[in-house]
């Protein structure tokens, strides 16, 4: 250990740039992981502010604050920012920090590519957000970009499409790096079936990214040529088909949903055993379940478009395939409960977020199963029930998992413990308000409220008011998260190498914080 520390010291000496230039030129996996995570944090507050514009307008019936067109821009950009700007970069940041530490590598396999794949993103998001100030306003056709509506966008359209191309490039390069690192950089003895679940889930996620981001790029490029080069891919009058875009989009979109959730499964599978002081139950079935979910994600896309007018056989196929996903997902949840069963649990903040994740993700899974039933989906489709469903799997799902991961590994990254009591406050406030925000949306959706509307009928008023109150509460609770992270970076109780009593894995054998280059000599795997 002292040898590693000494190495780190030497490295620090020949490491040249400092200040801003350090971050611009860095090829270090930890620096780049930090950059990704901070980008996600900033975009989280930007996307959150957009959500609060939406919830302010929806606080009571009538139009009080914003124009409906701007409202539509907010729903569109809120989704794009949260998906491409928060959840995906946050997971890539976690991958950058953790994968080399977890497989016993010095760094990522392709450090220069790593730098590039991060630095594309700030430009992509600057461009995306700048569309709000363009003639005709920002994109307002929904993040799903369905034509013909999206083709009515003003000057913003080519910029939105170009920024999506950028995000796709960044994701693909990040994914290539993850795969190259996991395949080539594992320490001797770190067999595939010994890798931590977080590494496994990310490996599978990376394959999904490489498979589907080009499909999205192709789809939006066809929108571009339809708009500016006279093609008619999606124009019925020219022999095209607007529904074809939906097929292309959701062939990307459904695997994308799993890109947003699989790394969360890995995070939770790392945290639960630590605080249960018991090994993960059913490691190999977890790996197979993840792979099954990834495979099935390619054959269920049309369940996002059951009302589009598909043939009966198509509806039946996509219903059965979608229902089938409940099996491997169920296996995961059961394995997590079995991991906790007869453990010796303590409930530090990462554990609280992980348990919150399991419960609320499962609630989102239940509504997902309901949505798979086509006859009932005709009622649920494009209603607030859907909004409730995907927010349950994304906010107390993906976002909670990311927060659990940050609390779990922050002492390792910074060498300092975060303030535990504040962390618990953050968890409980987030949990209460997230439910206050999204649970009532099930009710209004079932009662008939369509999504993406700036104003609504009077019978939906009570629950919308509740949801708006919850949204503000949740938003402000996240300022506490920002404060906790900043305080922990600046100082705090020193963390040991192992940080948590029950922690197992290579990252905990390194000092906290770990040296600049993680494992200069390959670790010995038990």
């Amino acid at each position, binding site marked *: 250990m002292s040898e590693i520390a000494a190495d780190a010291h030497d490295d620090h000496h020949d490491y040249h740039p400092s200040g801003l230039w350090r971050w611009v030129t860095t090829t270090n996996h930890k620096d780049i992981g930090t950059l990704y995570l901070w980008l996600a944090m900033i975009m989280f507050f930007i996307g959150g502010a957009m959500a609060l514009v939406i919830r302010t307008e929806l606080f009571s019936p009538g139009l009080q604050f914003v124009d409906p067109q701007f409202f539509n821009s907010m729903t569109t950009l809120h989704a794009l920012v949260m998906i491409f700007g928060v959840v995906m970069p946050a997971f890539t940041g976690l991958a950058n920090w953790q994968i080399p530490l977890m497989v016993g590598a010095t760094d990522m396999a392709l450090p220069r590519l790593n730098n590039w794949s991060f630095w594309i993103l700030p430009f992509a998001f600057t461009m995306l957000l700048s569309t709000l100030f363009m003639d005709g306003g920002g994109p307002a056709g929904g993040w799903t970009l369905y034509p013909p509506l999206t083709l009515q966008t003003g000057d913003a359209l080519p910029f939105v499409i170009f920024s999506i191309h950028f995000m796709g490039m960044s994701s693909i390069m990040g994914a290539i790096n993850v795969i190259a690192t996991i395949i080539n950089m594992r320490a001797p003895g770190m067999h595939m079936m010994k890798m931590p679940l977080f590494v496994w889930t990310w490996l599978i996620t990376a394959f999904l990214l490489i498979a589907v981001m080009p499909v999205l790029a192709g789809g939006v490029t066809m929108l571009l040529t339809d708009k500016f080069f006279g093609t008619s891919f999606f124009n*019925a009058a020219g022999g095209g088909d607007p529904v074809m875009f939906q097929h292309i989009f959701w062939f990307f979109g459904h695997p994308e949903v799993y890109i947003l959730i699989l790394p969360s499964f890995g995070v939770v599978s790392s945290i639960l055993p630590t605080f249960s002081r018991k090994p993960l139950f059913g490691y190999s079935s977890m790996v197979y379940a993840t792979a099954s979910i990834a495979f099935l994600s390619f054959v269920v896309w049309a369940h996002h478009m059951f009302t*589009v007018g598909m043939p009966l056989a198509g509806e039946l196929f996509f219903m059965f395939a979608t229902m089938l996903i409940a099996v491997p997902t169920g296996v995961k949840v059961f394995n997590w409960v079995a991991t906790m069963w007869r453990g010796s649990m303590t409930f530090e903040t990462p554990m609280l977020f992980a348990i919150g994740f399991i419960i609320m993700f499962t609630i989102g899974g239940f509504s997902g199963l309901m949505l798979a039933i086509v006859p009932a989906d005709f009622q649920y489709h494009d209603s607030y029930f859907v909004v409730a469903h995907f927010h349950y799997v994304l906010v107390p799902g993906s976002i909670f998992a990311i927060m659990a991961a940050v609390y779990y590994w922050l002492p390792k990254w910074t060498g300092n413990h975060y303030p535990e009591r504040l962390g618990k406050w953050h968890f409980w406030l987030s949990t209460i308000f997230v439910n*206050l925000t999204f649970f009532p949306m099930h009710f209004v959706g079932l009662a*008939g409220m369509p999504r993406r509307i700036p104003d609504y009928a009077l019978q939906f008023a009570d629950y919308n008011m509740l949801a708006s109150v919850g949204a503000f509460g949740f938003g402000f609770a996240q300022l506490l998260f920002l404060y906790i992270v900043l305080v922990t970076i600046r100082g705090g109780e020193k963390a040991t190498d192992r940080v948590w009593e029950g922690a197992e894995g290579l990252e905990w054998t390194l000092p906290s914080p770990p040296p600049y280059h993680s494992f200069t000599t390959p670790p010995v795997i038990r």
Partner: protein
Amino acid sequence: MSEEIRRMLPNLRSLLNLRRFAAVVFLLSFAGAAQAGWDTLNMPVGVTEVSRIVYDLHMLIFWICVAIGIIVFGAMFYSILMHRKSRGVTASTFHESTTVEVIWTVIPFIILVAMAVPATATLIKMEDSGESEMTIKITGYQWLWRYDYLDHDFGFYSFLATSREAIRDQAEKDENYLLEVDRPLVIPTGTKIRMLVTANDVIHAWWLPDLALKRDAVPGFINELWTLVETPGIYRGQCAELCGRDHGFMPIEVHAVPPDAYRAWVEEQTASATE
């Protein structure tokens, strides 16, 4: 146990207080729900055979989810309460069992098959628009609907009737705020009606919850729906596919009337159309 670890353990008393607070909020929201009435909480049962079947299917899968939830969360909460370090338990070391893995793969699969059977039967019924007695063409526009009675050669546009003042909070909002139109779609009860759904500009979706009908209106393509309404009444819905600025302001209002009244209404319409 080191002092450091002790500090990291949850402060049980504050935890319990927070839980109690959460419970109160939760109960209050349910009390509010009870006051607001069941209609604002759940899917409408509706007024057609199909809508009732859909409602039953919805409730069936809902209760299955509740049952699974009780078992899974029950086991989890039992574990959280009993298997905590503060109770002095030591952790077991078991970490796999092929038997239980097989059990909890097979049982959910069987439950899914049990759900798929009624769902499939319902879907086949819903997609069969044969033997319909009349046809109405529904066309979505930004931001209104047009209804054409193909058997009688007349049709009309249907606009939002709520005043701009009410939307801008300058006038009182009445009961049917945003759900009322100038000319509703009139249909006969007890008649199997085929509807052809299309659009003229962008994609819309025609949604009427009480009839369990929703179908996208796609420009250049024609989708098909059918319904058979049993009870006369006024049923209201909205456009369900984002279609631009005034997507939230193109409601659907359907008046289902007895066949006699319907025939009289059609005569009135055709007379005024030929004038």
